Structures are given as structure tokens and as C-alpha cells.
């Protein structure tokens, strides 16, 4: 009996949600707000909100305000797919942004094909996303192969001889190890072992002891910022002193500096955004105004390396809607191919990727190598 009551409530609530606001353009946002990726997902959403407010302050898109429908995918692929379903069918969003992690995005992708609704992918790095023949995917973050390719010219300058990998045991980490390994081998650099660690793992001293004993000169690490902090502290603790390069663009150097202190000194990081040196970014004015707004809202500065992607994502979507001329999925999908503007980390312009006829869109952001030196972020001279 209670079962049916609850069900009725659920139906009523869902119907109520559908009825709201027809004079706005709704954009679905499918991000992890709880679970393992909660922190990053929240940053991205905050960035997205800044973009939406900014666009609305300028009069919106096609004369209408944009409205973000934000849903939590709980860092769980099943939920991510369910959320996409809800956003598309119940909230009737003609376009979405999401879903942070690669496995989350991959879970959503069949839904995009099923309902033919486009999604802008802001963070995920798995190569699969843009090579599996889903024409509704448009990605602004670099897949690890692209990141490796951009990093290739720096390999010789750094004088790398042999590299070990320490990566997160998921698509993000393993994908990076494969793509960077391939690139390094082509460059004549020896590739040693690939060690993995679980997402929630806190103590990596065993892996580090193994890496310490290896004869490599460089360790390439792919993980989220919390684990990087732990790694740097634990490396210092066991006296592991090798060149460290992190990849993935989700490292958040400020948090590393704040939390790992001198243990992070000398570490190198591949990032896709340079908020510390706004004048070196492709659109310094936009960078400064974004950072200004971010600080004004009382968010931690450290979050900008995540949130700028949410900001650029919504801006790219707005451009697409503007170009489409109407807020309909098919038109927006087509219009994504015509998007061309300068984002906070380089031009946002989608190139075709994947099997012919069903290509996904992949933008090619800038990738920067930065170094943490005496508690500050600097661009190393190579």
C-alpha cells in the first residue's frame, strides 16, 4: 500500500518538473556531486553556473534566458545513465553537458544515440569516447592520446631516458599509461613498469617502494589531486627523488602546494589551463574575468583548474544554440560543428574523430607543462 503511495508521489513530482518554465532554454548538467568525484563535479558545476549567469546577464541566447538543470550522477555509471534519461525525457533538455569521469560519460553515450540528443563532454579523457562512432558527443577536454601528442616535443628537452608509470586503476589512468607509453617508445624512451592504485587508496607506500627500487629516471603519474597530494607526501617520506610528471589535467596545483607543501617541490604537471599566469592564456581578459567572478563568489582559487571546463562547456553549448537558431537537439548537434571561439585554454573548434559517417567532435585544447617551485607555479624553461 505504501508502495503505491510513494509511486504516486514520484509521478506527481516528475510531472511537476516537466511543467516548469517553457520560456527558458534548458541545458542539462550531469555531474558527480556525491561519491568519489564529488569535489571535482561540484567545481565544474560552479564554473557552469558562472557561464550561465554571464550569458544571461548579456541577454541570454536567442532572446531567452538559459537555465541549467543540474543533476547528480553520484559518481556511478548507472546513475549517470539514469540522470541522462531524466534530463532528456523528463526535463526535455535539448543539449547536455557531462559527465566528468570517462566511465560516467561512456554510460551516458548510448542514451544520446537513443534519443539523438547531443552532449558536450567537458572532462573525460578516455579515447573510446570519441572513437566509438557516437555522433552526439562533442568533447573539449583532451583524450590522453592528444595530451601525449602535445607533450611529445618536450620529451627530448627534458632528457627522459626511462619512465615508469603510476596510474589510477581506471580508464583515466590506464588509458594515460597506454597512450603516453606508446608515444615515449616512439621517441626512443624506455618504458619500465606500470603500477596502479585504486581510486580510494590512501597508502601507496608499497608501490612507491617498488618504484624507488627501479632504475628509471622519471615517474609519470595519472590520478586525481587528492591522491597526488598523498603520493608526493609519501614519496618524500620514503626518500623517492625522481623526476615526476603528472598528466590528466585534473591535478589542481594550488591544492597540491597547499596540502603537500615542500614535498611537491620540483614536480612537473601537464595541465590544460594556466590561471596563475592569465597573461599567457589564449584569452587573458576572459581568464581574468572568470577568475575574478570565481573569487567573488567565495570559491577556493584551487578549484579553477576544474571549473574552467564547466565554464567553457556551457559557453560552447551557448554558441552552438546560437548557431542552431533554435533549441532543438538535431539543430544543436549540427551547429556544434560550426562552433568556433577562443576558450580559456585555446580555440574551441570540433574536428571529426572516429568511424566515418558517425564521427564525434573533438576540440584540441592547449596543453602546458608547469612546475611547482618553492611553493609557486612556474612555467619551466626547457
Amino acid at each position, binding site marked *: 500500500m505504501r508502495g503505491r503511495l510513494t509511486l504516486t508521489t514520484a509521478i506527481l513530482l516528475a510531472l511537476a518538473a516537466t511543467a516548469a518554465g517553457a520560456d527558458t532554454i534548458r541545458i542539462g548538467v550531469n555531474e558527480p556531486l556525491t561519491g568519489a568525484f564529488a*569535489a571535482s563535479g561540484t567545481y565544474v558545476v560552479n564554473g557552469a553556473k558562472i557561464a550561465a549567469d554571464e550569458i544571461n546577464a548579456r541577454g541570454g541566447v536567442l532572446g531567452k534566458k538559459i537555465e541549467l538543470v543540474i543533476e547528480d550522477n553520484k559518481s556511478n555509471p548507472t546513475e549517470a545513465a539514469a540522470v541522462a534519461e531524466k534530463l532528456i525525457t523528463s526535463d526535455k533538455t535539448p543539449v547536455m553537458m557531462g559527465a566528468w569521469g570517462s566511465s560516467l560519460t561512456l554510460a551516458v553515450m548510448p542514451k544520446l544515440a537513443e534519443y539523438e540528443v547531443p552532449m558536450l563532454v567537458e572532462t573525460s579523457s578516455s579515447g573510446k569516447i570519441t572513437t566509438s562512432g557516437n555522433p552526439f558527443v562533442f568533447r573539449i577536454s583532451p583524450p590522453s592520446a592528444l595530451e601525449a601528442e602535445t607533450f611529445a616535443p618536450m620529451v627530448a628537452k627534458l632528457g627522459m631516458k626511462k619512465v615508469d608509470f603510476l596510474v589510477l586503476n581506471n580508464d583515466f589512468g590506464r588509458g594515460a599509461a597506454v597512450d603516453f607509453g606508446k608515444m615515449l617508445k616512439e621517441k626512443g624512451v624506455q618504458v619500465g613498469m606500470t603500477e596502479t592504485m585504486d581510486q580510494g*587508496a590512501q597508502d601507496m607506500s608499497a608501490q612507491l617502494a*617498488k618504484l624507488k627500487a627501479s632504475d628509471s629516471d622519471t615517474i609519470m603519474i595519472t590520478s586525481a589531486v587528492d591522491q597526488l597530494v598523498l603520493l608526493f607526501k609519501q614519496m*618524500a617520506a620514503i626518500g623517492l627523488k625522481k623526476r615526476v610528471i603528472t598528466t590528466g589535467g585534473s591535478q589542481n596545483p594550488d591544492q597540491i602546494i597547499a596540502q603537500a607543501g615542500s614535498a611537491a617541490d620540483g614536480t612537473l604537471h601537464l595541465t590544460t589551463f594556466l590561471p596563475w599566469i592569465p597573461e599567457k592564456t589564449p584569452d587573458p581578459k576572459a581568464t581574468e574575468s572568470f577568475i575574478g567572478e570565481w573569487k567573488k563568489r567565495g570559491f577556493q582559487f584551487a578549484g579553477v583548474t576544474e571549473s574552467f571546463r564547466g565554464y567553457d562547456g556551457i559557453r560552447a553549448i551557448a554558441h552552438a544554440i546560437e548557431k542552431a537558431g533554435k533549441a532543438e537537439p538535431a539543430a544543436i548537434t549540427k551547429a556544434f560543428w560550426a562552433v568556433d571561439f577562443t576558450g580559456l585554454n585555446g580555440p574551441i573548434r570540433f574536428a571529426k574523430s572516429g568511424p566515418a559517417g558517425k564521427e564525434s567532435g573533438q576540440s584540441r585544447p592547449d596543453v602546458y607543462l608547469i612546475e611547482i617551485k618553492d611553493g609557486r607555479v612556474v612555467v619551466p624553461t626547457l
Partner: protein
Amino acid sequence: MDQLIQHLVNTLVLGGTYALLGIGLTLIFGIMNVVNFTHGALYTVGAYLMYLAVAALGLNFFLALPVAILGGLLFGAAIELLLLRPFRGSDIDTTMLVMIGAGIALQSGTLWVFGGVAKAIPSPFPEAPLQLGPVSVSWLRLFVLGAALGLIAVTYVMINRTRLGLAMRAAFQDADTAALMGVNVRLIDTATFALGSSLAAAAGALLGPVYVVFPQMGGLAEVKAFAIVILGGLGNITGAAIGGFILALAEELGAGYVSSGYRDAMGFLIIIAVLLYRPTGLFAKAERVG
């Protein structure tokens, strides 16, 4: 060889806190017959209390530690009074489910209050590690090991040398008889749960500065605590202490020489193996019959 020595040193440092976690859990099981699924959440609470005391209140690191442990004690007492006392006499499955519910609520609660971003707790120890030949170990971790061993010793003395401990041991042997002999079993339950919780909080407060503090940190810690308790035999305090070090050793060697991906599988494999080989744990004093 150097790698092996480094692994062994790591084991020692890690094992101390594992033992602390395990003892808290095994105490609660042994005396109250409650499988405490809030143990991980209390570990997290301990770490956050440490964070609050050091980072927010600006307390001295060494002063903050007892504050966090005391906080864990109060938290544990509250859980026992509010959630376990009403369920006195229920079967073990019911209390286990109550604890699961409480664990979910507590963990989500910390996420709600503190947000998902990991927090770091500054420590007063130097970054540079202590070098002993090829092996190095950080000063902070040495302190953590020392503090953990100290707390284990205090617990041991408390249980074996004090009136409260005597009452606890009596309740452990046979709650009904202890009640007949004038032991206030309800009070013992509250004290036991509070003590066990404070040990979990202490482990969190000690490891918080070593690692970082985040709402999900307790999940893995809890599972490891279970492994340790099973290893040592449910309710066996000495067993739990030794179990902590064995688990740490298995993890270190497993990750170092087998595959780091299966590092966390070591604990579970140990549980399964031990239960199949010796269901009452490795250090059970006498085999139970029937």
C-alpha cells in the same frame, strides 16, 4: 633487498594504526555482540575532528589529538545510547542493520557538512624523512606508530588492570551472569562502544595528517578493520593487534611483489582463507565446540 627492508618498515608503520582500528572493532563485537558498521564513519569523524581542532580552532597538534579522541568517545557514547540501547535484545542481524543505517547517515553527514574536497591537516614534523641507510621513514609516521602503540598499551592496561576492564571482561564472558553479579551491563555497553569508537577516531586522527581527510576515507578502513578482526578472532584483543601487523605485511608484500591492483584484495583473501582454515581466527585461545 633494500626494497624488502623498505616494505618491512612500511609494514611496521602501517600495522600500528591497523591494529588500533581492529582493537576498537573487536572490543565492540566481543562484549556487545554488535558488528559495528559505523566503525569506518567514526574513523572519518576522528579525522575531521582533528582537522577542525588543528585547522579551524588553531589548536596545537599534540593537544588536538586528545580532543579528537575525546570527540570520538562522545560520538560513540551517543550512538550507543540513541541507537543501540533501544535495540537491546534484538538479534545480531538487526543491530548490524541499524549500524549500517547509522554508518550511511554518518558518512553522508560528513559529506554534507564538510563537502567532498579533501582536507589536509598540517603537522609539526619536518618534511625530510629519517634516513637509516637505504631506508627512510617520515618523522610523522614514526610518531603515529609510537602513538598507536601507546594507545594500544593504554587500552590493554585499562582492560586488564582496572575495575571497568574487569567488568568488561566479565560481560564478555557471560553478560547474564555479570548482570547477576551486580555489574551494570548497560553502562558497560555504553563504555565499550565509546571506547571502541574512540580508538577508531584515534586511528582517524592519527592517519588524517599522514593522508588527507575526506568523507569516503572510512569505507576502506572499515573493511580492513573487519579483516583484522577476523584474522585475530572476533573479540580477541591480542589477536586484533597482531592481525593488524599481519594485514599490513600481506598488503605490502602483495603490492610489492604480486600486483598493486590486488593490494586491497589481500585483506579479503586472508579473511576467506582464515575462515576456511580456522573459523575462529588465527589466535583463538580454545576451539569452541558446537
